[in-house]
């Protein structure tokens, strides 16, 4: 049941992605991106990842707002000159299709959907599930991993966000260079 629902949602996401790529109106493309993100959030919920579903939907909303802010009141239609030539698109599609065919056999070697490898071997995830609560005191095992076992990653994540915020602020400043002769 879960598998079929995910399958249908994924097909919808792929169709949405094709629409995003082919739509001339940029604002519609951005809104379609929001729809795909929403679908992804539902898939996360189906896959028993509610933490991720919440983060994904919140991030989808905020990136949608930022992208709409970037496109609205600006040039919102893709002009024909922005299209690549037909031949280059076909070549690229063929190349990607070839790549897909080449790696397709590899999917059969991945663990079967629904039977992950962590359950079979002595893996760290088993340890988290067994002792996460007693070691960290947090009943939410995902939070226990994010903020205790792998808190160093979370520091990195916060710093990545800090860096890109600072980057956006620094890119959008008005005076980048001082005028020759000015002292401050």
């Amino acid at each position: 049941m879960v598998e079929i629902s995910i399958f249908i949602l994924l097909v919808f996401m792929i169709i949405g992605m094709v629409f995003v790529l082919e739509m001339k109106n940029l604002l519609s493309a951005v809104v379609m991106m929001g729809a795909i993100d929403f679908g992804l959030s539902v898939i996360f919920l189906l896959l028993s990842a509610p933490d991720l579903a919440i983060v994904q939907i919140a991030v989808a909303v905020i990136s949608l707002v930022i992208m709409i802010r970037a496109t609205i009141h600006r040039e919102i239609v893709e002009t024909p000159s922005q299209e690549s030539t037909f031949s280059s698109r076909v070549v690229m599609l063929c190349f990607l299709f070839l790549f897909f065919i080449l790696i397709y056999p590899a999917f059969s070697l991945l663990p079967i959907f629904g039977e992950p490898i962590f359950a079979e071997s002595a893996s760290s995830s088993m340890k988290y599930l067994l002792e996460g609560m007693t070691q960290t005191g947090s009943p939410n095992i995902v939070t226990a991993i994010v903020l205790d076992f792998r808190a160093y990653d979370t520091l990195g994540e916060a710093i990545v966000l800090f860096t890109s915020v600072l980057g956006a602020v620094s890119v959008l400043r008005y005076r980048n260079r001082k005028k020759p002769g000015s002292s401050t």
Partner: protein
Amino acid sequence: MTGMTIIVKTVAEWIKGFIIFYGVYIVLLGHLSPGGGFAGGVIIACSFIMMELAFGKDQAAKELSKHGSHLLDEYGALAILFLGLLGYFLPKLPFFSNVLMQKFSFIPFHILSAGSIPLINLAIGLKVSTGLYSVYIYLSHYDPRMQEDE
């Protein structure tokens, strides 16, 4: 820009508190239920952005300025780093260990459990909400006429 119509402003005023409350709830209970600092922080940032959209730039700048939100962002990041280093500076504890969990005992499933996890969640919530709000406000306040280079 003076914002949107009176209906939007009234509704935004009403639901602002609920959204912030929900965000804080998600941050504070991140270790007991789904959610956490990132999700809650983004939700709080959404409420700030909603107020900015409804009331316009000038009103928003009065409540939380560009510079202020940026400084809060830095305070949040410093708080996370400090909580990590707390273990490093205490004897016999490593970097990023759950110091409070090892020094005190807590009641499980209580809001004040799990040692420093809720504190890190709060710091992340502060950092993410103000950081994303400052990105948004810098993006929407950008005025090309003030650009001096080229």
